[in-house]
């Protein structure tokens, strides 16, 4: 079998970017959470906020570390595997990515040092400032990377001359049509992801009868936040979808499973898309609802996949199914968040053991929802690198051979397996270790010399404490 460098490069990019994406999507939310805790601690002086912040900083240190190391890979993927694209789009992509580095990466990386290791070395205000700068850095970073990413989907402000993009308007190129929707959708996704993880961990502590004071405080704040953010995300997602319908109707056709362009299109709830026969098997659909959602009219015309030749269509089944996974999980998040909020206001949340247990099981789900959303939007962009302007087949590195791409693909899978395995193992230990108990003063035990601890150090005696708990 001939190894295809294009296919292998696509798999590699999908793998490294998916692996990378789960970390920032969590740390963006978590950084704001830590900044909030530091602010509350600064204002009230309450040790509860301090213990909470210290605990979540330990988690943050591990996750951020994995995000940084996997992010460096991303900075070079465009060059190693997509050099034709790099050369073609550098005039736009280069400055945007460089702005991300100088406005965000340095901010995060530098103030992270103060946040992790500087609590006793700088005044309290400066430590709070560092926490805010890390949070701000993560937000700025997501703005730039989404500006670049949105431009792939809705390119604007450029002209393509002899295979090279030249920027005609920076304002239009950066604030391209899909950026506001994508940015709002992603920012909410980050807060929801962070919120569900914080709520899930706190709920787990409450169910296990540990750290009640800190966990109740954390759960209360996150449940209120989630009850606002999750329904808002549904609205935002809908607006993002309508924006996509305007600019990339073929992607929406794949998401919805619409093969034919027609007015009064149904909303397909379930079906098995068949690309060869251009139809859905076992389709379950609600008549006319598709048109109503997308065009706000029962008889509005909805573009189908047949509007473009087969070679210009994305793979339908994976886009169709990823979309359903994302929406389904979103609905679940809304239901659980609202239920939890109701229980909170009835004063019963902390005793609702089944609900708390459900929330702790939900921890992996926002990551799956986010990845499913990325699959929808990125696979739905195929076969285009830059939508309507540059095909992925014209973007790959010409000198790349199949075995080279395969070698690094296997290499990255192996390296990331180690990183991810170790990361999860140590995160588990941090979470089992839990926040420091409130009453205990930070005195080191007699007879054991103090040794330097990294920010993410889990107490060595956690097993003993657990056994005693």
């Amino acid at each position, binding site marked *: 079998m001939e190894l295809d460098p294009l296919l292998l490069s696509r798999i590699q990019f999908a793998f490294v970017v998916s692996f990378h994406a789960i970390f920032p999507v969590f740390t963006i939310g978590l950084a704001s959470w830590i900044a909030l805790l530091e602010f509350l601690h600064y204002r009230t002086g309450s040790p509860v906020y301090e213990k909470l912040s210290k605990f979540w900083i330990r988690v943050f240190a591990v996750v951020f570390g994995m995000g940084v190391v996997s992010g460096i890979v991303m900075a070079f993927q465009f060059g190693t595997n997509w050099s034709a694209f790099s050369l073609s789009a550098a005039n736009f992509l280069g400055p945007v990515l460089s702005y991300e580095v100088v406005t965000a990466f340095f901010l995060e990386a530098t103030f992270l040092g103060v946040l992790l290791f500087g609590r006793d070395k700088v005044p309290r205000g400066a430590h709070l400032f560092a926490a805010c700068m890390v949070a701000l850095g993560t937000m700025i970073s997501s703005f730039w990377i989404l500006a670049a990413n949105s431009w792939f989907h809705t390119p604007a402000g450029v002209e393509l001359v002899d295979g090279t993009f030249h920027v005609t308007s920076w304002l239009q190129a950066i604030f391209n049509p899909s950026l506001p929707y994508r940015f709002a959708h992603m920012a909410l996704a980050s807060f929801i992801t962070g919120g569900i993880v914080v709520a899930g961990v706190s709920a787990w502590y409450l169910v296990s009868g540990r750290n009640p004071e800190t966990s109740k405080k954390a759960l209360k704040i996150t449940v209120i936040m989630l009850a606002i953010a999750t329904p808002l995300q549904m609205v935002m997602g809908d607006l993002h979808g309508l924006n996509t319908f305007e600019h990339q109707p073929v992607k929406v056709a794949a998401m919805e499973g619409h093969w034919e362009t027609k007015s009064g299109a149904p909303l397909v709830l379930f079906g098995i898309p068949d690309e060869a026969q251009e139809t859905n098997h076992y389709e379950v659909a609600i008549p006319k609802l598709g048109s109503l959602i997308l065009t706000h009219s029962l008889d509005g015309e909805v573009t189908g996949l047949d509007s473009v030749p087969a070679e210009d269509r994305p793979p339908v089944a994976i886009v169709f199914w990823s979309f359903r996974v994302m929406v389904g999980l979103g609905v679940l998040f809304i239901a659980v968040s609202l239920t939890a909020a109701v229980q909170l206001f009835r004063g019963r949340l902390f005793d609702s053991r089944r609900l708390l247990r459900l929330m702790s099981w939900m921890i992996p789900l926002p990551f799956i929802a986010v990845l499913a959303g990325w699959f929808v939007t990125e696979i739905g962009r195929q076969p285009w690198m830059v939508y309507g302007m540059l095909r992925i087949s014209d973007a790959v590195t010409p000198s790349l051979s199949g075995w080279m791409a395969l070698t690094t693909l296997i290499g990255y899978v192996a390296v990331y397996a*180690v990183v991810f395995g170790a990361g999860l193992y140590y995160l588990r230990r941090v979470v089992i270790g839990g926040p420091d108990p409130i009453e205990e003063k930070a005195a080191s035990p007699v007879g054991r010399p103090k040794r330097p601890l990294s920010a993410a150090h889990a107490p060595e005696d956690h097993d003993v404490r657990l056994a005693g708990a």
Partner: protein
Amino acid sequence: MELIDLTLIWIGIIGLGMFMYVLMDGFDLGVGILFPFAPDDQSRDLMMMSVAPVWDGNETWLILAGAGLLAAFPLVYAVFLPALYLGVFLLLAGLIFRGIAFEFRFKSNKNRRWWDRSFSIGSTVAAFAQGAVVGAYIQGFEVVDRQYAGGAFDWLSLFTVMTGLGVVTGYALLGATWTVMKTEGETQTWATRVSKRLLIAVFAFFIVVSLWTPLAKPHVMQTWLDGMQWLWIFPLLTTLVSLWVWRGLKRGHQATPFIGSMLLFGLFYVGLLISMWPYAVPPDFTFWDAASDPGSQLFLLLGMLFLIPIVLMYTAFNYWVFRGKVRLGAYDH
């Protein structure tokens, strides 16, 4: 835009960014390279703690170099990375294993040895790969139609292995003199001893590379012969600075060996640029051939002029917060 040569300004900015990277990640990669040779675990704890708050910021300069090249000299980005495809993977894998070791090492008890290895092997591989990149740059690239057209292993030759080892040794010197500056007692004594040996080794590499490069590359030979009168100040300065570092180590100075080692790197760096001038992708493409649109260079430049000083300011703040000798338990909380 004829009044200002944007490309020239960008050579300066990218040059500065790469140099910042080489110095700053140089010393913390160097600490990693020396890790297995440290006298005991306590020294290793100290060495790692001395770079833990700053390594992430240091490594960010590499990302800036990558993104900056894409922005200002896309041809460099689009030729170097495919040409060094497998080397780039080694570099990134090395940086990954080095980076995660910081968080995981201090949290593990029984697996500590593995993270020690992850830290030192990762650092060494990353340093070697960077040295090989320098060697490959001197060697030149086969380019057809503005895309790399050579083979997968063109970058790997006797010459690039030698430059790779040279950079490993050089980073180790930076790491050793940094350790001299940041530690006391037994660790410092050991670091001083190691620094001396490394200084000799670095000087030896300097001589070999300085002779080999012009002999292999007639274009470099020509540059040096033409600039005979003033260019020879570089070998002279290198010798003087090396002697200054040596003297600092002999007399137990705290900071001068590290400052001197950074100066040595500065001299090598400027020397390399002069030798290769004006080629960005040798043997055919100059920096001006490799440049992006003037509009793109200008758009980014306007931000950079304002942002880079801010970045330097808070980077300095970070180093200032963690100034002085590192102590055990200093970051405990």
